[in-house]
C-alpha cells in the first residue's frame, strides 16, 4: 500500500502509523521519520520564526509517489506513506512524515532513510526562512543532500 499526500494541514502521525501497521498481519516493523521546523539561530541573525514551503502542484504529488514506488521496488515493503506539507510552518511544526512497513526491521529502517534522502533531492519543494524581524531568505540546496541520495544509487 502506497499513500502520498501534499497538504497544508498538519498530519496525524498516530492515525498514519495505525493505518500502515494494519495493512497486513505480516507487518513486523515500522520505520518512521518526522521532519520538523527547527530553530537554527545563527550569531548576528534574528531567530527563525517559520519556514514557508512552496511546491509545484501536480509534480510534487507525482514525485512523492515515484519515490514511494522506488522504495517498494528496492525494499521488501508491505507499504509506505509519505506526507509533505506546504505553506507557512512556524517553529516546531512537522513538515514531513515518512513511514515504511515491512516484515523485518532492517528493511523498514533502510526504506525510511531512502525515502527521506530522496525526497530531499527529488521532490519539488522550496523552503523560505522567515526571521522574527520579518526578513526572509530562500534556503540554498545543500550538496550534502545530493550525497545522501547518491548513497542509494546502484
Amino acid at each position, binding site marked *: 500500500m502506497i499513500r502520498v499526500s501534499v497538504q497544508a494541514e498538519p498530519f496525524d502521525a498516530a492515525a498514519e502509523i495505525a493505518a500502515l501497521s494494519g495493512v497486513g498481519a505480516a507487518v513486523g516493523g515500522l520505520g518512521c521519520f518526522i*521532519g520538523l521546523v527547527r530553530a537554527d539561530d545563527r550569531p548576528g541573525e534574528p531567530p527563525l520564526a517559520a519556514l514557508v*514551503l*512552496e*511546491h*509545484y502542484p*501536480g*509534480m510534487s504529488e*507525482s514525485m512523492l509517489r515515484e519515490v514511494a514506488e522506488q522504495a517498494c521496488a528496492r525494499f521488501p515493503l508491505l507499504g509506505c506513506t509519505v506526507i*509533505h506539507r506546504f505553506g507557512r510552518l512556524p517553529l516546531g511544526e512537522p*513538515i*514531513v512524515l515518512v513511514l515504511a512497513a515491512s516484515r523485518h526491521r532492517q528493511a523498514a529502517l533502510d526504506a525510511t532513510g531512502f525515502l*527521506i534522502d530522496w*525526497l*530531499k*533531492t*527529488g*521532490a*519539488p*519543494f*522550496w*523552503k*523560505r526562512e522567515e526571521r522574527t524581524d520579518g526578513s526572509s531568505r*530562500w*534556503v*540554498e*540546496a*545543500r550538496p550534502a*543532500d545530493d550525497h545522501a541520495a547518491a548513497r542509494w544509487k546502484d
Partner: protein
Amino acid sequence: MGSVHLLYFAWLREQLGRSEERLDLPPEVDRVDRLLRWLRQRDPALDSLAGSGRAIRVAVNQRFARDGDPVRAGDEVALFPPVTGG
C-alpha cells in the same frame, strides 16, 4: 507552431515577478538548452538570473529534464532552483 506553458518557482518566480506565462515557440527551439538560450535572449531579467551563477533546474511535463531533452508545443516547462524540501 504552438505554445509552451512556462512555470516559475521560488526565487525565480519572485525575481521575475510572474509565476507563469505562455509563449509561442519558434520551430528551432526544440530542446531544453535551446529553450533556455531563447528565453534569456528575449528576457533580460531571466538572462541576468540565469547568468548569476545560481543553479536553475528544468522540468518538462513535470519530470526533471536535461539540456538535450526535447521540448514541444503543448509542453509544460517549469524553471526553478534546486529543491530544498524534506
